[in-house]
């Protein structure tokens, strides 16, 4: 990752500037309530700016950045309630293709197109414990072609996507497939969810023929890529949550300063002030944990515990912050016109997708005894803290 701290600051500022101009909250709400559920002009603009190529290596025309930078975008999309396929396409599909590149030519072609924003990708995540083998997507050879049979759940923005990167079973082995959704026949079931800013679909394939090179990685290597997909998903949703939480909390604070009751701003009452202080601690805690989780993921070290902890704090924190933002706004916060409920709904989809925060708890509990705590790189002197 070649970005300096100054580059990062500049990049963040450019993301904020673009979304402030092109995706203010009121516009995000309008777009979300209409079809196709995102602003394709904005998506093209994002593509021209190179955001979908953040994770792509420079030799393939990308930026060669890491999850830290991707999460900056995701955070601002959350803050602006921006609809669209950035997380499934630019983070998860592109990330998986980058991770699966070794020896898979097909991945390179898809990657070039997705990285430029020319095509939209999406993903299905590995279900660690499938309730029923029939619930998974199976691939079997038939003559020259492959036939796909089974289901992919929780596929974001599948209608707009050109391809889906998905875990499949080939001859009893785990593999990862890149399936061309324009070519491969499937049924799409759209969920009508309360959060309209993301579209969630389920896909069913019924012995659908697919290109023979659709499998991009197999076996243990595929499982490793899927685990990284999952970590990326947790980080990207956590970033969305941190951005959303910070934005809706700022609104609640601003309202508490201007809303007068009993002759005083309601923010001067400790019941309100303390609630806002507690929720601000939620924001700061999630933000600090997320930054460290991204650092560890990008550094290639042991990131599992921190990713799960950050995800849990961020996803549950956003729901608390958004709920208390409604409370602080009072009656107006409960109206349809006010945006509080939009953040609340986004928070609840974030905390529920891909197994949700309950699964994060399970996974964290599973790795707990093994946690070996790394020493932070604090090459710093005691005196400098005292002087600060």
């Amino acid at each position, binding site marked *: 990752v070649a970005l300096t701290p100054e580059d990062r600051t500049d990049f963040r500022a450019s993301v904020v500037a673009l979304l402030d101009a092109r995706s203010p909250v009121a516009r995000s709400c309008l777009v979300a309530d209409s079809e196709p559920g995102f602003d394709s002009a904005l998506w093209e603009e994002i593509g021209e700016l190179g955001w979908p190529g953040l994770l792509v290596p420079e030799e393939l025309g990308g930026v060669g950045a890491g999850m830290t930078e991707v999460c900056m975008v995701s955070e601002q999309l959350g803050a602006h309630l921006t609809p669209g396929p950035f997380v499934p396409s630019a983070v998860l599909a592109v990330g998986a293709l980058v991770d699966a590149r070794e020896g898979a030519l097909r991945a390179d072609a898809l990657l070039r197109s997705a990285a430029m924003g020319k095509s939209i990708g999406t993903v299905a995540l590995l279900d660690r414990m499938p309730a029923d083998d029939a619930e998974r997507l199976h691939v079997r050879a038939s003559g020259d072609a492959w036939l796909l049979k089974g289901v992919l759940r929780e596929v974001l923005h599948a209608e707009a996507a050109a391809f889906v990167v998905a875990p499949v079973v080939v001859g009893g082995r785990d593999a990862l497939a890149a399936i061309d959704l324009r070519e491969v026949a499937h049924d799409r079931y759209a969920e009508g969810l309360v959060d309209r800013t993301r579209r969630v679909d389920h896909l069913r394939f019924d012995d659908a023929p697919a290109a023979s090179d659709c499998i991009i990685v197999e076996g243990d290597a595929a499982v490793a890529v899927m685990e990284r997909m999952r970590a990326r998903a947790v980080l990207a949703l956590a970033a969305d949550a941190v951005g959303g939480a910070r934005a809706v909390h700022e609104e609640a604070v601003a309202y508490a300063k201007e809303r007068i009751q009993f002759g005083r701003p309601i923010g001067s009452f400790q019941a309100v002030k303390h609630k806002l202080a507690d929720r601000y601690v939620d924001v700061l805690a999630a933000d600090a944990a997320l930054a460290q989780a991204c650092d560890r993921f990008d550094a290639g070290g042991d990131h599992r515990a921190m990713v799960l902890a950050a995800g849990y704090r961020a996803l549950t924190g956003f729901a608390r912050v958004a709920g208390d933002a409604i409370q602080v706004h009072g009656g107006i916060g409960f109206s349809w016109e006010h945006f509080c409920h939009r953040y609340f709904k986004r928070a609840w989809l974030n905390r529920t997708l891909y197994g949700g925060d309950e699964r994060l*708890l399970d996974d964290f509990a599973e790795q707990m005894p093994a946690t070996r705590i790394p020493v932070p790189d604090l090459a710093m002197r005691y005196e400098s803290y005292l002087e600060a």
Partner: protein
Amino acid sequence: MLERVDSQSFRSHAETWMQSNAPCGWRAQITAATPEEVVDFYREWLRALHAAGLLVPHWPVRFGGGGLGIAEQVIVQQVMSQFDAPRPRPMIIALGHAAATLMEHGSAEQQELLAGILDGEIWCQGFSEPQAGSDLASLRCRAVRAGEVYVVDGQKTWSSFAAHAAYCLLLARTDPDAPKHRGISFFVVDMSSPGISVRPIRQATGSTEFAEVFFDQVELPAASRVGAEGEGWRIARTTLTSERVVQMIELVEQARAAVRRIESELATVTAASGRSQRATERLRGEVTETAIDVEVLAAMTERVMSDLATGGTLGATGSVLKLYFSELLQRLTATATRINGLDGLRDPGSPADIGYLSGSWFTDHLRSWTWTIAAGTSEIQRNIIGEQMLGLPRS
């Protein structure tokens, strides 16, 4: 992140030394001991740690430290947890707030007192008063300048280990006409000065760690004032908050050790008690959430440190860390107490203060209120966060 190479050899040194020197059975020993024996035990342990270079590796060499970085202090704390070694609890003010204040604001003469701290002297704080708790800046203890001395009259309370202290960090009012935050000065008081008397307070846990300190016409040399007259409030506040960040390293490692201990107790106690599967799962869920909170606290602490390293200011972030830690500690000790059933409520007899890994989870849980009350209650911390960080109007 990678450890630096010299950090690795420092860790090996700490582990090797701790392997042969960490005391065994010290909790039982302390529980049965008199307060004097407890203090003696910790003093000997502190001296041994210092001789091995493991007490204050992060202090500058000119003050008797190891001249190493914060990373080495993290390693010491991790290794101490690994070997379940005691922290020199009664010397916590001396090693923390007192030392930081002397290094940062003390005169050359005052800085000579650091040698005594490294020899195991106990320091106490004279901040709170019966009528000045959360509203600390309204303190009334007076220090009146009379030539080359100040004459101090007043009463301090909730002063930890005052009965054993060699020195006291004192906040006293030197200018009753100034606005309340500006009329306060900071002093280092020799506890053997004539006119000082100490009366232990028996606290809710049954122990007498805290005490009241009475000052009756106590004469302090003018040279015992730290910083300028009227600067006492600022000195106490800034040093306290920055030192708290460094102290958080130790607290994080202790909390991690506590989580590991609770996990193993959950397994052992459950096997022995016939607790239902459902109850076990509920408790395990609480332990998991606590473990997550501890890792998040570690990330928050690290972020504050790296912000400071790159020229940021602490502001009210110290309040965020303190609030987060205090409430986490309260949840953690409650869960641990419940896991242990009646055993968790067993009266430890003589609950000598040995931190929150005392072996009596209920005592530790009860003692967690010292964290949510002392050094600014959780409510005061929320006010600070609300007003200073969020800009909400004062109540």
